């Protein structure tokens, strides 16, 4: 696999090119900001009817990562659903698909600002989750150490000989790591823009998603 392996608080972690994080020692796969049901919530608010394929597309990629890493535990790091009711509105085939992925492994839904309550799909619902030196929560907390979070949808733009290329990315400094959004219908916040710019330290490393996961220091 074309992942990028690195060490974080003494643990060896893999940033997958899809934007998922894998922790081999714990057989743990973590994805953030799936935003299931985004198209539908957009429509309920009187906007246009966006192509209703984003949940399917997100599940397809998640299915692939689970097949590749065969984790014993999956953590969805918050904003898994674009709104609290979205889990109820998932169509039958998507529900079945989630249940199939959950079979035979632990599944942890961490609550996010979009989905701050329990969902009626299997799995455990928690506000945060700690394992060894690492803590998983949706929004980065001040002063936290060894923290894995999501929420900000980091992305990075590179200037390649006059051609601009923008990619979703992991962003990590010595204290925390912020995961890219995994959902298909998600935008991004540049790693240099507020508040990401100040949340992360001067020695921030970004890991770009794409065909391969590629590390690059954040430009100042």
């Amino acid at each position, binding site marked *: 696999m074309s992942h990028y392996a690195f060490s974080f608080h003494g643990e060896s972690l893999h940033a997958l090119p899809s934007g998922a994080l894998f922790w081999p020692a714990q057989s743990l796969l973590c994805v953030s900001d799936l935003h299931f049901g985004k198209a539908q919530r957009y429509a309920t608010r009187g906007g*246009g009817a*966006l192509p209703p394929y984003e949940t399917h597309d997100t599940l397809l990629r998640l299915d692939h990562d689970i097949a590749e890493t065969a984790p014993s535990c999956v953590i969805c790091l918050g904003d898994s659903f674009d709104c609290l009711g979205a889990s109820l509105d998932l169509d039958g085939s998507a529900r079945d698909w989630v249940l199939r992925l959950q079979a035979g492994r632990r599944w942890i839904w961490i609550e996010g600002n979009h989905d701050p309550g329990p969902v009626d799909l299997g799995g455990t619902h928690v506000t945060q989750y700690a394992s060894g030196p690492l803590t998983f929560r949706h929004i980065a907390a001040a002063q936290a150490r060894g923290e894995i979070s999501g929420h900000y*949808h980091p992305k990075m733009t590179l200037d390649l000989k006059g051609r601009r290329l923008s990619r979703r990315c992991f962003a990590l400094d010595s204290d925390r790591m912020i995961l890219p959004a995994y959902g298909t219908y998600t*935008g*991004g*916040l540049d790693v240099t823009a507020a508040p990401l710019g100040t949340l992360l330290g001067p020695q921030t490393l970004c890991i770009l998603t794409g065909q391969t996961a590629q590390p690059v220091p954040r430009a100042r």
Partner: protein
Amino acid sequence: MHAPHPLITAWFTDQGWSVHPHQRDMLARADDPATLLIAPTGGGKTMAGFLPTLSELADGTHEGLHTLYVSPLKALAADIKRNLRRPVEDMGLPIRIEDRTGDTSASRKKRQRADPPHILLTTPESLALLVSYEDAPRMFKGLRRIVVDEIHALGESKRGDQLMLALSAVQGMCPDLRRVGLSATVEDPAAIARTLARHPDPCEIVLADPGPDPDISMLEIAEPPPWSGGNAAYSIPAVLAQIKAHKTTLIFHNTRAQAEIFFHNLWLANEDSLPIGIHHGSLARAQREKVEAAMVRGDLRAIVCTGSLDLGIDWGNVDLVIQIGAPKNVKRLVQRIGRANHRYNAPSKALLVPANRFEVVECVAALQAVKAHDLDGEPRGTGPLDVLCQHILIRACAGPINPPALYREVTSVGAYSALSRAAFDDCFDFCATGGYALRAYDKWKRLQERTDGTWALRDPRAAQRIRMNIGTIQDTDTLKVRLQRARGGKPLGEVEESFAATLTPGDTFLIGGQIVRYERLREMTVEVTRRADKKPKVASYMGTRFATSTQLSQRILRLMQQPEWPELPSATAQWLALQRRVSQLPEPGRLLIESFAHDQYAHTVVYGFAGRNAQQTLGLLLSKRMEDLGYDPLGFVATDYATLFWGLKSVTDPQALMDPRALEHGLEDWLAGNTLIKRTFRASATIAGLIERNLPAQRKSGRQATFSSDILYDTLQKYDPDHLMLRITRQEAQRGLVDFGRIRNMLERTHGRIDFRPLPRVSPLAAPMFLEMGRVPIKGAAEERLLAAETERLMAAAGLT
């Protein structure tokens, strides 16, 4: 026959004027359902359009709205208001005239809906907005006439389609509405007449005396033009001499960037400090208004400008028009020339300045076309479906709609007269449910059927969001430029986002004729200072580039077939002769392909003469073909007449390279992932209401909540490739940025007749292409390699490995 009202006749007599024959004709046809007037600039066109209105309103008995006037520009509506109020006041007519555009205050707009004036001057977008209100029938009650000004400019764009759809709705409220179109000289008046009239009503065409032929020639300059480039710096002294010899000169450019550079150079050489201004669409409104006001006062000797001055605002004293760079399009050239000598029966005076040697040929061809009255134009095709989708939503805002009745109304618009019911239903379904293969929105339809068979907005609040997104003009992604100051400095204008992205602090660039220094980007605003400590390193921004029209390209090809060229300057004639000797000149019914080695690389030039956009697309398609055929291409550059490729291996089989079926396939397949197509999709999806440009302020959430339209495009490609929006995108790709239609025409024209010329060295015709800007490195595997190299370099530079 309607005679002009005595008050009007008296006013004409007082002015010492007589009513022009075409103005009489317009009065005579005042009761016709539709009339198109074709008249040159300065021919009293607007007065001709309004005379019947003034006559009908003269007795003061009409209540409410009588005449709606629509123009493509807000400024033109304001200009006409001034120019119409004066005679109306002089004549003592009891007529209220008001304008209504994006600049009109909300309170005035509200009052206009409750108590409309007799004559309302507006724009297509403002009219579409009026049609979307529930009380539209009350406002339009009593409306008798609609005057569409500069209809030639609207007729070729989606704004025109939107206008005509809005008109069909107004006509439904006022069945006796009569339509008048005012147009500059065009190649096919009948086509515009069909656009204007309610289908299948007849539309009489009134042709005004076109006036004497323009006095147009090339500006004589001793020095020959350079081989390449577009800034025409060599012409500065000659242009300054012309400015001195005339009262007021308009200096037209094809792009904003060229206008900025020329203006800068002009001032460097302007030792007498002649008052010269600059005007283009990217300058801040205040800047533009300042220049316009100075122009009206007669304070300026010259204005360097772009298409922003193309339309008929009356500037008074212009006595010379200079066109810098090849005109690309004969019709636009003629309309620009018309801006000089704004007096009936006096010839307009214009000079052409080619910016490089190839443009000399193009300018001579354009001069011949003007003399022969051979104007160009592309047939418009049927009405675009994205505009129809927006219209359906607009109609739904005004109240429940009945699909069969709306279909009948829509097909009364000329451009949509051949629209099938099935195509209409597709658009309707898209508006109602999204029109996806997967029926996901049964609960959340945008439009919902009611028990009486009509359809209405499910959520009435959606009306506000739809109204906020009315319009078909696509702003490219631009960033505002401001002087740096504590509380937001003076706005200077806008630059394209892609250009802003290339700036690093300290870089200098030209905007509004001044050199500014890039300091930083703050909240999507480019902050600059006037610390112009070095020459502008970066030459402004790209702007829109026009492609040379099909007709003009054909004329150039024919010109090249002459045995010799007495009409061309000797430097250019010798250049063509040399090309004929060492290679050959391209022929109209054949495709010339040259192949030669240069600078270690194999080069291939395809002379398609299909215009810049199509040659660019051909570059993308052929680079894929070359990759497949094992020629290892590395990059290409396109101009209006050819595409130049470089790579590792020479082309050996030109027939296989140009295989039409493979090219068609490439459009469907490979080009589908291209940025140009994605940009085309975004434009159409925005017009059709899938993507919202503007959101209600309270809904504006963090930037991470909005995602790129490219994601929607990729998702549709993957899961719903036959969706209406993708069909519209493929349709749109036939013209515009992608312009595949012209590649197809080129293939049909040459029909496999290829002149393949392997040469020992660069040919004379190909040489200037090596100096062209805008080289495109070939994508594909190369991009990942570039990315890997760059990330590695950055890691190493940061001491991380």
